[in-house]
């Protein structure tokens, strides 16, 4: 499974990056490819290109606030979750997504 994600939290310093780490760890454990863009206090980092978005199997939006450049995700399969879900249970989240994509 090829995943792209965006994380964005209110202050943009802590949860944004913790969610990134949690998603990356979970993806590595389950053998998936992942690229996580962060939108935080320092701006957009690791920005996803339109072609990366189009080629992904799923887009995960782990956000607490509005995100910039949302147009990129208009035509793709996505799941939007609270950022705390990504931090608390990234493993479970990816398993659920895998299940859903298979049905």
């Amino acid at each position: 499974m090829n995943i792209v994600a965006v994380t964005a939290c209110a202050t943009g310093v802590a949860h944004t990056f913790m969610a990134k780490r949690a998603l990356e760890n979970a993806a590595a454990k389950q053998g998936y490819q992942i690229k996580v863009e962060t939108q935080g206090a320092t701006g957009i980092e690791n920005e996803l290109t339109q072609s990366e978005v189009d080629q992904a199997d799923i887009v995960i939006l782990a956000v607490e606030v509005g995100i910039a450049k949302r147009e990129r995700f208009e035509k793709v399969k996505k799941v939007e979750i609270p950022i705390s879900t990504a931090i608390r249970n990234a493993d479970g989240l990816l398993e659920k997504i895998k299940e859903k994509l298979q049905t």
Partner: protein
Amino acid sequence: MEKDETKALRKYVEVSFSNSNTDKMKLIEEIAGVISNWLDNESDAQAIAKGIKEREVLSTTGFGNGFAIPHGKVAGLESPILAIFKLENEVEWDSLDDEAITQLFVILVPVDEAQDTHLTLLSTLSYHLMDEEVQRKINEITENEAMKRFIEMIFKKGR
């Protein structure tokens, strides 16, 4: 250049903090007072507590394994600071794993964030705090200076 940046980020550590309060909000007020003293009243205790509570009510900063990363924007603060406390008495924090916390990494930033370099360091820290190996090492540290050195080492890693 990296060394100057980490030196410029103000860090305060207390590895054996005897907290009088074990209620989350009261504990925040208690540490706000301590931090305000460390800063020679650059920001007063109320402003610090307010900044932390504002963020905390949005969603918990307790992310598991006894760690919490309370943070906020504080009026009067001149530049970002990192304050680390190891609490002697655990506190319920509504953590994501429902466990009480003893390790607090408090991050305070000015209301007008002009200092990108410090924010980058603080986000790097948050990124690595999610790692169990890092958490294990932090659990083993019992001296203030050792903690500061460990944090500086983390800052040198990427994310």
